[in-house]
């Protein structure tokens, strides 16, 4: 295939120098024949009369319909259509801790379909830049309060029986800039510190079976091998429940931005706890007090005490269609339109989502659609007849552990406005008469 595909780009003289001359000449004859028939088709189409009201996209011959596309040898790792270049992660200097190596890029969740984020669009938070690790030189060490401390190469790790799970990962600061009011007229920046993927790896409890975990081990330090050496303390309960070491994301190796070759995955818990470029697990009797579990990732309450070890992302939801980036400005009165959104909970499975058109005064139940899985993005849907009237659209999710998304008022009553992290209050969009969508908060 390679050879014939290359042919179209080669000159005839080059071809004749090759050894397989006869078959290649056959190919050229065939190609010539195709070209002739393409020309013939074009000349047949040309005289068709175009009336007003006919769509030129239909009536006019398109270049891609009358000439060959790319050979299969192009892009041996596929890339999106050039027309999709705006579907990308975006950044803001205000969300950096000084430079782009300690910063975050936001997922374009307004363009996201279903419950899986393509690997190239997964949000990316780094503390010391994106490490480019040679997997052959990377090791995982498991030590501390175990009878048998071990070292694993990546090939050895991947010998363990694997499990595959769909989970979102969310930065607990998602929506954090808006504790004191809306600031971003954009869903990508208001809620784009999250993404979702199908992860493949091994349960840590599977590995621990052979290591002799000592009964006094209450905590596990997970530490990255990148330049930030970021560590976080994980309680043993999670380690023995569903904690995983993952090496694959949506069927291929993790991207460097997601911790290639391996990262920790604690389903439903703060993205920061899911340590990337994972190199070391150490079991201990006491917690470690790493920088990112004291200085940051703690939620300050109005009484001056901060919640530490705030693990799970609480139940949350947002309407993705419409949103500021995907408004209803093209709709006509009377159009039937789907209101769609994402609901998720790091504490369980989404049980249902309610929708309000009047800022949360009255609610109706939406439908869930697609797969409904624990600690996973879940799609919801509601069919609405567009009337061109102003609306205050809101969604409110609940999970099977008994949690219901609070109103802004309810959340502020407990957490105040200085928590930075773990904001899961009901999100509202104002839809104007023209169908434009603005980010607002309802304080009632």
């Amino acid at each position, binding site marked *: 295939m390679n050879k014939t595909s290359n042919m179209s780009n080669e000159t005839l003289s080059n071809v004749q120098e090759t050894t397989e001359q006869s078959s290649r000449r056959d190919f050229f004859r065939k190609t010539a024949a195709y070209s002739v028939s393409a020309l013939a088709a074009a000349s047949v189409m040309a005289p068709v009369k175009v009336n007003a009201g006919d769509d030129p996209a239909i009536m006019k011959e398109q270049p891609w319909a009358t000439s060959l596309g790319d050979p299969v040898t192009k892009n041996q790792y596929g890339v999106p259509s050039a027309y999709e270049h705006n579907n990308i992660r975006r950044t803001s200097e205000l969300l950096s*801790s*000084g430079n782009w*190596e300690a910063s975050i890029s936001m997922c374009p969740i307004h363009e996201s379909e279903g419950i899986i984020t393509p690997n190239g669009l997964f949000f990316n938070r780094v503390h010391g830049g994106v490490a480019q690790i040679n997997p052959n030189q990377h090791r995982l060490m498991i030590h501390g309060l175990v009878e048998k401390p071990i*070292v694993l190469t990546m090939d050895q790790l991947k010998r363990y029986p694997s499990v595959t799970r769909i989970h979102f990962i969310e930065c607990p600061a998602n929506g954090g800039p808006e504790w004191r009011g809306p600031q971003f007229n954009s869903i990508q920046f208001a809620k784009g510190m999250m993404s979702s993927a199908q992860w493949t790896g091994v349960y840590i409890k599977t590995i621990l079976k052979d290591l002799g975990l000592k009964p006094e081990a209450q905590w596990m330090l997970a530490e990255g091998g990148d330049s930030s050496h970021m560590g976080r303390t994980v309680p043993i309960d999670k380690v023995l429940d569903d904690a995983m070491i993952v090496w694959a994301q949506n069927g291929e190796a993790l991207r460097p931005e997601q911790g290639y070759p391996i990262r920790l995955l604690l389903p439903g818990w703060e993205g920061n706890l899911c340590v990337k470029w994972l190199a070391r697990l150490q079991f201990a009797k006491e917690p470690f007090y790493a920088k990112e579990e004291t200085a940051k990732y703690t939620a*300050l309450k109005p009484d001056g*005490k901060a919640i530490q070890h705030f693990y799970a992302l609480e139940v949350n939801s947002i309407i993705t269609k419409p949103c500021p980036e995907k408004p209803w400005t093209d709709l006509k009165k009377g159009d039937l339109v789907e209101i769609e959104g994402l609901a998720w909970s790091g*504490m369980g499975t989404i049980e249902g989502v309610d929708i309000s058109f009047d800022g949360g005064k009255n609610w109706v139940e939406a439908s869930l659609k697609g797969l409904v899985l624990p600690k996973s993005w879940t799609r919801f849907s509601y069919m609405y007849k567009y009337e061109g009237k102003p609306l205050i659209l809101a969604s409110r999710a609940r999970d099977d552990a008994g949690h219901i998304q609070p109103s802004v008022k309810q959340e502020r009553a407990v957490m105040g406005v200085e928590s930075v992290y*773990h904001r899961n209050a009901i999100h509202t969009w104002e839809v104007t008469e023209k169908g434009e969508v603005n980010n607002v908060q309802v*304080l009632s």
Partner: protein
Amino acid sequence: MFKSCHKILLSSVVVAATSTVAFAADKTVSNTYSNGKKVIDGGATYPIVNGKTSAYHINENTLQGGYSYARPATPNEMKAWDIDVMPDGTGLPEGKGTVEEGDELYEAKCTSCHGDFGSGSGSFPALAKGNAYEGVKTLTNQRTNPDKDGPIRVFGTYWPYASTLWWYIKTGMPHNAPLSLSNDDVYALSAYILSINEVTVDGEELDDEFELNKENFMKIEMPNKDGFVPNIDGPKGTDNVRAYFADTKNYGNGTRCMKNCFDGKPEIQRIQTEIGGFNPPLSTARDLPKQEESAGAVSEGQKIYEKTCAVCHGNEAMGAPVLGDKQAWSAVLKKGIDAVYKNALNGVNAMPPKGGNMSLSDEQVKATVDYMVNKAK
């Protein structure tokens, strides 16, 4: 779905009516682990029932152990990688350093990002804001209106243990050269950062001559040591966490009201000062990207810029002239290109000589300046 529709309807009604958890009788979802303890994060767990956990099938034979791929970690390897430092002093090495030595190191290696006396610069974090004992009192501040002062969350006012500072400096700082400081350097910098926060050690105020070492490090008591909940220390640590998150009153929960949930019209808060400056600007257009101006080979100046200079010049938060900012660069160039070369070579204001990379030749620095100047044309 792993549960029947009937069950979902039933549990919705219960949740709506009482806001308490009604876990299913079929045990596919539970709020307790198999050891009888509540789930630690206040959420649900999905035990393996009939070969499945929630919707996922599972091969239970994989969970029994018996794997022999790993090799034992050697004592030397564990020592080499065990870089954490815990509040009880585990992992803290021998060493010493004075406030004055720390001050000198700070000037040389830290000021360019963290500012004079830890005041911060741009969006790089501040390390001190006045007297830490006074600063702790601001932690109850709430910016419910824009004129109010917020809580001060710097090392001295917020962090519960100094061990975290030692560990973080040793393994994470300077940001562009972690693990480059000696143990004595880290003691000296810790002493200096304690001193600018006016934290006392064993009742002693830290003057220039104060020397921090392994012994007196353990006597540091941070002002906000008791500022965190739940209490995670000691044998009850994880159970305290469990109890804290089992009670939603500690972090909030909603109610499932369906009709007339508040009086009157909704009180709407709109965007006051919109944050923009997104990179690149928002767009959902399906068109072809604009052609890059001159997608040629990457110049040496650009390579050096990206490696050494972008840390500060890539972001206006730093105060350094940003790459491509015509106004900022025309101001810089008023003194002429030779003055710009000189500043780049010798340092100016917060900028260290050669941008902190002394391995660069003068010619390389000049080429980098040329690249940056051209970018602003």
